[in-house]
């Protein structure tokens, strides 16, 4: 088993980090700079910035946030939201991002994924899937931060994204997101079994046990947390200790 990779996910709207429940009812929880700095000092393994209104407004205001973080935060930074063309990716990487997360533009035009993977390498292309359950063992991929339905099966789409050159899949359960009631383990397992690239679990972390459960089940290769850290329920070391105490390796 690989060591735990614990990611803090910061959903960004304008100048703020926000958090909702099932991607709705957004509340401001802090500023990106302070939260990223706090998690870095606590030993977070990676940070994901998600501009959750970029698709809606057709603009990117997140790059200055990333550039500021990259000044003195020396762990991988992933940026998502509004990545529509190769130039958007290039701009994000130039500002200090290591990887970009793509959802809406990839579903609208899967060829964009191949183009991006060829231009920058698969290792920097993360496909973000927002999955909503619509039956037993069935999930639909949504776009525009959960606002638009696509008719695409989330698990099939994960497999297609891998074949198009994605290097990782970020799986967000829209049903669990922000509820702090645990991950959608069946969704994670379904996608993890279907693809050979790393899968990042997102949506639902509310306790350290939720993170440990993902690691014990082996249904993801990284775990992204938001509310559980933002609201101060747990610190990064507390989340890691729980996984470590179950016999897994973590970075101190």
């Amino acid at each position, binding site marked *: 088993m690989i060591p735990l990779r614990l990611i803090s996910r910061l959903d960004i709207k304008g100048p703020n980090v926000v958090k909702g429940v099932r991607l709705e009812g957004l509340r401001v929880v802090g500023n990106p700079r302070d939260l990223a700095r706090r998690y870095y000092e606590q030993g977070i393994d990676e940070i994901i910035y998600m501009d959750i209104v970029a698709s809606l407004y057709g603009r990117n205001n997140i790059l200055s946030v990333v550039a500021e973080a990259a000044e003195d935060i020396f*762990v991988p930074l992933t940026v998502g939201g509004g990545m529509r063309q190769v130039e958007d990716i290039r701009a994000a990487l130039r500002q200090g991002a290591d990887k970009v997360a793509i959802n809406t533009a990839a579903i609208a035009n899967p060829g964009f994924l191949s183009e991006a993977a060829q231009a920058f390498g698969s290792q920097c292309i993360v496909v973000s899937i927002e999955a909503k359950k619509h039956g037993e063992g069935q999930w639909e991929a949504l776009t525009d931060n959960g606002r638009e339905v696509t008719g695409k099966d989330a698990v099939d789409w994960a497999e297609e994204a891998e074949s198009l050159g994605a290097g990782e899949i970020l799986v967000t359960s829209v049903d669990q997101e922000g509820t702090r009631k645990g991950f959608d383990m069946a969704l994670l397992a379904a996608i993890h079994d279907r693809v050979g690239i790393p899968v990042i679990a997102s949506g639902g972390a509310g306790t350290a046990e939720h993170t440990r459960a993902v690691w014990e089940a082996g249904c993801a290769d990284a775990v992204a947390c938001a509310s559980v850290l933002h609201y101060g329920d747990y610190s990064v070391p507390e989340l890691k200790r729980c996984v470590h105490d179950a016999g897994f390796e973590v970075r101190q």
Partner: protein
Amino acid sequence: MIAVVDYGRGNLFSIARSLAHVGATFAVTRDAAEISTADGVILPGVGAFADAMAALESRDLVAVLRDVAAAGRPMLGICLGMQLFFSRSQEFGETRGLDIIAGEVRKLPLKNGGMRVPNVGWRKLDKVRPDPLLEILERDPMFYFVHSFVAFPDDGGGIVASLPINGVDATVMVRRGPVAGCQFHPEKSGLAGLQLLARFAAMSGAQSGATRAA
């Protein structure tokens, strides 16, 4: 002064920020004269091997980098930058590399139920041999990896550290005289990575001393 080679294919921003953080004197440059006379050279790189070699060739930097290695000045290749030091790569057909270290770059083997490729995340180094770049590090540090290809030195020589991946010992740190390479990203590996870069700066005599070490 350390020259960070700018050929349009690396995470220059993060490497520059890391070097500044540890108080190294450096310049991000594509200027052959500046690279030739630098006290140390860092070759970054992300993306595809052939594309990166083409970028070095179009900027007339291939001979410059070989000369720096031959002159015995410290060099550090990071990720794809390390792979470029080798003789050739099998990524998208065979491509010649800088050939400073004899060996070949190949795709990581796949294995059902094994480690996933790309290999992404934090790993401890395995079978570590002493190296000046690792001297002041904490015990068993973890470094951040993100790669699908890895180098295989021809004679198994010069291997500083490896990672067991799906049945092979993948070479993730290598040294041939003054030339070192790491498959991981020290600029993205927290304190351990900063310490490694601080060591490289010290070995290059490119430490201002004015700012704090990692």
